[in-house]
């Protein structure tokens, strides 16, 4: 974890903390809504931990509470969550096994590079402390100390890294300039959400009856506002903005007629003009490539300023 602090600027870390705080607050409302809808406290706790995708969980709760079939509610939730597939495609290799990621989960397994041999190196965790006496053999005894943890470490990292893929972690990852920063932002935000979302949900469920009418506090406006604030830096790109507006219009137009969740997916048709536009506009592309060199930096700064600066 200490490497996260080295890789990310303090501004980005603060933004991530604020995003997690917002998630926690939304989790409060989610837990409260779930309990108010007749679910037992354990339900939002379990769902928020196992699904970790706010919009689909709200949707699930809403459909089931309205008398809908839970399996239909699950399918609607899956439609909303289908966006995680393009997320996985868009992300650089963050959870993959080919980079053993000394920058990330380093200390316990592979990370002498980042966390520094002087701190967690062989001297401290090595034979001196845990080695010959008592705990050493008991802990590492089942397998070779070197290869065992490394393999399970990768599998674990892949599993957890996949589970912490969410709107916020993806946005923060994409907003960073280079791969180590992307990876650090992804993990910091992903793990933060994994803690804050269920944490808020549980507390909200426990408080439960206190906030009966979430509408009265405008809590229902928070979720779209959070997502909107997170994509604003991307929307400063005119082409993306146009496509996003078109997609939003399509989704809104389809909402009265299609089952919940489908309209959001249908918005993807707004990608099609982008597909056609790029190859034809050769001159524009030259400009675009010239711009794209500077774009990530500007993007990152925009993200830093808009998402945080609290």
């Amino acid at each position, binding site marked *: 974890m200490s490497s996260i602090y080295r890789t990310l600027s303090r501004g980005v870390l603060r933004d991530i903390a604020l995003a997690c705080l917002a998630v926690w607050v939304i989790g409060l409302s989610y837990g409260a809504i779930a309990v108010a809808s007749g679910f037992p406290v354990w339900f939002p706790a379990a*769902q928020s931990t196992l699904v970790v995708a706010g919009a689909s969980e709200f949707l699930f709760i809403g459909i089931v509470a309205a008398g809908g079939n839970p399996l239909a509610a699950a399918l609607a939730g899956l439609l909303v969550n289908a966006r995680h597939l393009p997320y996985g495609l868009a*992300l650089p290799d963050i959870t993959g096994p080919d980079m053993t990621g000394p920058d990330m989960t380093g200390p316990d397994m592979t990370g002498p590079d980042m966390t520094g041999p002087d701190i967690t190196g062989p001297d401290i965790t090595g034979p001196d402390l845990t080695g010959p006496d008592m705990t050493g053999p008991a802990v590492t005894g089942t397998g070779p100390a070197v290869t065992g943890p490394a393999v399970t470490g990768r599998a674990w990292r892949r599993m957890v890294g*996949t589970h912490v893929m969410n709107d916020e972690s993806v946005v923060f990852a994409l907003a960073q300039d280079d791969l180590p920063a992307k990876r650090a932002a992804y993990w910091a935000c992903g793990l933060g959400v994994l803690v804050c979302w269920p944490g808020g949900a549980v507390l909200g469920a426990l408080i439960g009856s206190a906030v009966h009418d979430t509408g009265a506090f*405008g809590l229902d*406006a928070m979720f779209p*506002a959070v997502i909107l*604030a997170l*994509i604003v830096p991307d929307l400063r790109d005119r082409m993306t903005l146009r496509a996003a507006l078109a997609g939003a*219009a399509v989704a809104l137009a389809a909402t009265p007629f299609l089952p919940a969740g489908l309209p*959001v997916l249908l918005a993807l048709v707004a990608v099609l003009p982008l597909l056609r536009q790029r190859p034809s506009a050769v001159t524009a592309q030259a400009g675009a490539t010239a711009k794209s060199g500077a774009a990530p930096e500007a993007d990152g700064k925009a993200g830093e300023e808009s998402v945080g600066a609290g």
Partner: protein
Amino acid sequence: MKDTTLVVAGMATLAAGTYAFRLSGQLLRARISFPPRAGKLLEAAAVILLAALVATTALTEGHGFSGFARPAGVLVGGVLAWRKAPFLVVVIAAAATAGLLRLLGVR
């Protein structure tokens, strides 16, 4: 909750399916050789999906209109975000606007 077993089955389906989505994108990416332009397009696709999510969660409730208070709150939040206001200010302003409007009787 009427039928706990069925509701838990629904939740498990949602959880497993969501995990499958999260995993399959990454696995596909490893197999497909990936031009940077496609990466840009996918990034745009993600933004489009999120924008649609914003629009639908802000403006609709079920199959109908959500009322004015919520989208007004989101709009205030959006304007503040565009003007680079701090994140927490954006979120709280959105909630406060919607809450205040409802307090004033706007639905």
